[in-house]
Each structure stands twice: as structure tokens, then as C-alpha cells.
């Protein structure tokens, strides 16, 4: 019996080994395929900016930095990147300032219809970020004296981002045990102190992730500045991208290619930084 059993075990082991081998190979193949799928379209962004004659074709470039000097001659290109930075950093901060306290409260205090409330906000945000809401957003900003201001764009962008930000941040806060706060409370710390000295440090990675998420969303947003800004010196990169066309309505490839890369680097760098410092993860756990 014993011998027999051992034999079976050996057979099993071989089978398992074979299985893992097949698994390993197919895993590797899958990863390679997935990486190519995601990487190939990005190659244009890596090669075309340095090609003296960029087209849609991905080819080994005729290396040079001429596209960047051509782009630098555009009087609005760099300025628009500065504006994008203002809009995006502003929105990131506003989302945190408005969203973090709200999500903390929503995580720690249970009241009837809390999840429904959050979800309805989320639904409304889908309307406010769509093109149908253009006229209300414009008229609202007009009444609040926000047309042609940085604040106006930041506030409107934040309004659209805040529900999803609260939604994600709340899940994040849910995943943190309450015991820290409770022990601080035992030592007599005030609510504000607990929030500042106990909770904030723990949820900092979550805040960083939401900041980056909001920053990225604002960075690419066209609609809000398009509706609210008229002064060309305040327009962000997302709007200026549309102007890199010549009199004949043709994209000026050299400028577009160089600008695309410079426009992408800041968000990429920000991701690198946050990922290195905190780890870039989302948390999700609504209780259905």
C-alpha cells in the first residue's frame, strides 16, 4: 500500500511539474503579448519627436532635436504647459482638500443611504463632465465672476472629479483599522489632532494616488478651459494642441510630435515619483 501510494505521489508530482511548465510558458507568452499591445502604440511618442521628418509611420528616426526648437518658436507652447500645471496642481489640491475630509467622515460614520448618496454623486459627475453641461457651467462661472480665471477652471474641474475621488478615498480609508484613532482618543487627543497627526499620515499614500489621478485628469482636460478661458495666455496645453495646424488645416507634425512628448513627461514623472514614494495602488471595497 505504502509503495503504491508513493508511486501515485511521484506521478502526481511529475504531472504538477509539467503543468507548471506549461503554465510558465503560457504566462510568459501572455505577458509578452500584453506588453507589445501596450507598448507598440507608444513607440510613436518615443521616436517621432526626434525625427526630422515625422509622419504617422513608426520608423528609425533621422535623429535630431530640430522639432523641439521649431516648437519653441511657437509663442504659446511653453506658456500653455505652465497653465496646465496650474490647472492640474490646483485641481489636485482642491480635490484633496474637499474630498479627504468628506471621505473620512463617510468612512467612519454610517448613516442610512450613505452608499446611495455617494453613488448618486458619481452619476451627477458624469453629467457635469459631459458636453451637455457646457452652458450651465459657463453661466454659473459667469455669475461667480470666474470667467477667464484660473480659479474658475480649477473649481469646475474639481466639481467633476470630486465624486470619484471621494468614492476611491473612502474605500482606502475603510481599509485602515480604526484602532489607531481609538487609542489616540483614549489619550485624550481632539478630533482635529487625531485627523492631522494620526489619520493623515496613514492615508497619505491614498491621498497621493488621488492627487495624481486628479492631476492626470485635469492635465488632459479640454472642455473646462475651452468653455471658461478666452485669454490665450491662460489656455492649457490640451487646448493649444488644437492650434498646431497650418493655414491649410494640416497638423504640423514636427511641432505636434515634440510638443506631445514634452506634454506627456510631467505626468509620467509625477507617476514615477509617487509610485516610488508611496506605491501607486487603488483600493476598492464597496459593500454590495
Amino acid at each position, binding site marked *: 500500500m505504502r509503495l503504491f501510494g508513493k508511486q501515485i505521489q511521484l506521478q502526481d508530482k511529475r504531472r504538477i511539474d509539467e503543468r507548471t511548465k506549461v503554465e510558465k510558458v503560457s504566462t510568459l507568452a501572455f505577458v509578452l503579448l500584453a506588453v507589445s499591445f501596450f507598448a507598440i502604440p507608444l513607440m510613436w511618442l518615443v521616436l517621432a519627436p526626434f525625427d526630422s521628418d515625422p509622419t504617422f509611420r513608426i520608423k528609425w528616426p533621422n535623429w535630431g532635436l530640430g522639432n523641439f526648437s521649431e516648437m519653441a518658436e511657437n*509663442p*504659446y507652447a511653453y506658456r500653455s504647459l505652465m497653465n496646465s500645471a496650474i490647472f492640474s496642481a490646483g485641481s489636485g489640491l482642491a480635490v484633496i482638500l474637499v474630498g479627504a475630509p468628506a471621505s473620512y467622515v463617510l468612512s467612519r460614520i454610517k448613516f442610512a443611504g450613505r452608499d446611495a448618496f455617494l453613488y448618486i454623486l458619481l452619476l451627477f459627475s458624469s453629467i457635469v463632465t459631459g458636453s451637455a453641461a457646457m452652458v450651465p457651467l*459657463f453661466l454659473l462661472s459667469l455669475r461667480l465672476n470666474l470667467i477667464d480665471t484660473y480659479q474658475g477652471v480649477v473649481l469646475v474641474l474639481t466639481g467633476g472629479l470630486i465624486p470619484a475621488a471621494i468614492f476611491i478615498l473612502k474605500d482606502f480609508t475603510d481599509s485602515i483599522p480604526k484602532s489607531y484613532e481609538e487609542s489616540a482618543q483614549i489619550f485624550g487627543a481632539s478630533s482635529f489632532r487625531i485627523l492631522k497627526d494620526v489619520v493623515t499620515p496613514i492615508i497619505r499614500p491614498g491621498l497621493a494616488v488621488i492627487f495624481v489621478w486628479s492631476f492626470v485628469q485635469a492635465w488632459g482636460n479640454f472642455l473646462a478651459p475651452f468653455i471658461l478661458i478666452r485669454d*490665450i495666455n491662460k489656455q492649457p496645453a490640451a487646448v493649444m494642441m*488644437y492650434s498646431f*495646424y497650418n493655414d*491649410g488645416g494640416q497638423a504640423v507634425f514636427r511641432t505636434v510630435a515634440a510638443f506631445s512628448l514634452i506634454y506627456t513627461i510631467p505626468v509620467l514623472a509625477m507617476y514615477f515619483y509617487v509610485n516610488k514614494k508611496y506605491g501607486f495602488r487603488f483600493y476598492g471595497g464597496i459593500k454590495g
Partner: protein
Amino acid sequence: MRNTLSVRTSSRTFKAVLGASLAGALLVSVVPSASAATGSVGGTCVKVGAKAKVGKIKVECKSVSGKKIWTDTKVYNVSISANAILGGKNNQTATWIQNYVIPQFELSNAEKGKQVNVSFTPAGIDDNQFKTQLALDLASKRGPDVMALDGFWVAEFAEAGYIKPLESVVGAKAVNAWEGWKQIPASVQGVMSYGGKNYGVPQGTDGRIIYFNKKLFADAGLPTNWQPKSWAELLTAANTIKTKTPSVMPLQLNAGDGMGEATAMQGFLNLLGGAGSLIYDGKTKKWTGNTKAVRDMLGFYDSVYNKDKVGNSDWQLLAGENGRNESFKAFAEGKLAMIIEGDYLWRGVINPVSGNFKMADRNTNVGFAMIPAQTAKSGVNGQSFMSMSGGSGYALNPNSANKSTAWELLQFINAKEPVSSFMAIGGAVRISQRQDVNTAVLKSDPCLKFVFEKAIPNTFFRPASVNYNAVSVLLQKATTSIVQGKSVAETAAAYETALKDLVGAANVASN
């Protein structure tokens, strides 16, 4: 102490926009340079600033022997906007406004002792997006004092009360006093008019013709002084090219809603007119529904793209400008024999110096023909040839705080010298609004001469109606359906149903 006034105003009031562009050097030759000091009321004003840099030119005035420079101490601020931006979309217009219009207009006012400060609001976005921005501004009683408008937006903006007839903005007397009207033909004035009233001043116009490649025609055994007299002759030529030289694409006739208004202007409006019908009958006040003219027009598309296959269907279906660009590229490279286009093709697209698709042998190898009606004399008004014209212009904001200065600016940009200087930028000669400029400028250009002399006399403008835009889209979509292979009868019927929904069944003509 009065001298300091000039310093203050020159740094603040005449603040120029930063920028650099190719046309700077060119402009200096047009604009009297800094040395051209002019005596003003109590002093002298000069233009100063870097000659080669756009937007660096400022006006400075110095008092002579302590006299007053400004007879009027008020500063008049006016703003002008256009969907044009330095180094980008409509660079020519932006350069002209910033480097010629602004300093020159400010200078001419300074000479009269009037301090005027003109600011330009550039934009470089899609035309529909620009229209939306402008409409939002005007709806909230803001916006620029003088604004560029596409001619076919005038009706919609006028109905919404966003713009008003010039005579109700600045008074009939002031409007009629302008000498410029004599130079602008009534039909061209129509670009910026609605309900018989002028809402602005047009900036020029254009016309549609058939361009053909003489070498490809010769290869196929067709005459190089070709002029078709009917749709059938046009198709015959296309089929000859298809048979004799199969590698050549015979004809580009814009189709599909992806191309937007290009499909109307270069496509179905010419055909509808050639079949004896306008899209909107001003007399009966009815839109053209499922009529014989519409079916014939769609039938011609059907022949080109399905039956005879003498056009490239894919180009018509691509998104946005992509399809049109494909056709430009093919024509410039000598792979397309005929293309129906506006004079923009000649002076812009295939311009051997500055075009997107430079055609080195443009001047020798491109022939022109008028667009024929369906058959001789079958067109509207018994015409045998057709053309469509469009254009844009500048209108005044009825809520402007400085209406009379805005009107002065509008007159200034349509005066002879500024219009000529616009033509001089980048060598982009076009058909202007002014006859005196046209006669001086167009004679040297064979294509513009042809358009001006042959196409413009047969030309039509789009109806000034709020519904035009939406009806046009319906017909654009109908041509998409044809290209995609739907039948003429089915498409025409579907078009009429949608048209009735849009304008009401009572306003649709069908037979």
C-alpha cells in the same frame, strides 16, 4: 510733465503681444517703418519696436513744445477676435492683425489725438468650437467688439440677437457714409447679410471649379483645354481615364458628413444647382425635399462612387479632414486626375511654395474648368455652369462699449491699403471683398483670374437661414449613405423624412 503721459500710455496702452513669425520681415516692407514719423495734434507719433518681430511694434507719441498730445483724454479700448493664432491656425490673419492692423490703426488715431488701444484675442481651435465660444460670450453680453464670423453663421447669430444690423449698432448715417461699400459687389455683401440687412463686412469670397491634371488628361487621350458641358461629359472623361490609365483615380467629388461643409460647397450644392434647384427657395420659402433634382444629384454621386466607380469611396468616409487631405495629396502627386474644389486648393493646398501638398508643376500642369450643369441651361436661372461661394467677415458686437471706435476699426480693416497688405502676407493672394484690390492683384494669377472671371459670375451663396446648417448636415449624411451603397430612392426618402422633422412638413417641397 505732460511728456510722461506718452511713456505711460506706450507701455500700458500699447502693450503688444509677444510672438515671432515668418511674416515679420515681409510686413515691414508694407508697413511704413519706424522712421515714418507723423505729426499729430500737439506732437509726433512714431512706430517703434523690433522690425522683424511680430507684435513688437508699438506706437509712441512725443509732445512738441509742451502742447497737448491728446485732444481727447479718454482711452478707447476695442478688442478684435478671430479663430487665428500666430504659429498655428490661420497664421496669416493673426500676423496681419497683430503686426499691421493694430499698430497702424492705433497710429492713425494717435495722429488725430485719440488714444485707442486695440487688443487681439487669438484662438486656434476647431471652427465649431470657436463658434460655440463666441455664442456663449455673446449670449452673456460679453465678447469682443469686432469679431470674425463665418458667413453662414450670420443667420443663426442674428436670430439669437447676438449680432445686429450695422445700421442699428452705429446708425444708418454712419454706415452709409463709408466709401467701402461701393467697392464691394452686392452679392459679396450677401456673405454677411441676413434679411436684406448688412450685419458686418465680408472679408472676401471664393469660387468652385474643376481642377484637372493636364498630363494625366493627355495620357488618357483627353484634350488639355477640356471643358465639360454636362454631367455626362464629366463622367465620360472620368471613365476614359479609368479605362486608359487604371492606376489613376479619375475624380474627387466631396461626399459624406465627415467632410462637413466641404461636401456641401464642393459637392451637392453645385449639383443641385446644376439640376435646376437650390437647397432653399427664397420665393416659396420651402426647403428642397425628395425632388427630382435631389434624386438626380444623389444619382450622380451613385454613378461616381458605385456604378462607374470613378471616385475613391474610402476618402469620403474618413473622419474629419483626413479624407479631403488624401484627395489633396493624390492630386498633388499626380495620382488623381480631377478634383472639384475652391480656389483655396490652388493658392493654399498645392501652392508649390507654401502648400501642404506642394505641387511643383502646378503652374504648368493644372487646368481649370467650370462645373457644368446637368445639361446645357438646366441649371438655376437657366445657367449652364455652376459655382458656390462662401466667405467670412467681421461683425460688430451690439453690446460693445465703444461702438463708434469699433466701427472705425471695421472700416479700417476693409480699407484698400489694409486689404492689400493682407494679400501681401506670405504671398497668399485671394479674391478680396474689394473690386479695386481685385483688379490690381488678381490679373497675375491664372487660377484666381479664371475663378473671378468664369466662376464668380455663375456663383451662388448658401441661404441665409437658421436651418441651413442642419439641412446641410442631412444632405451630407445622404451622400454618406450613397457612398456606403444605399439606393438613391431609399436615401432620398429618408432625407425627406428627416427634413420634415427638422423644418416642418409644410416647409418642404417635393415632387
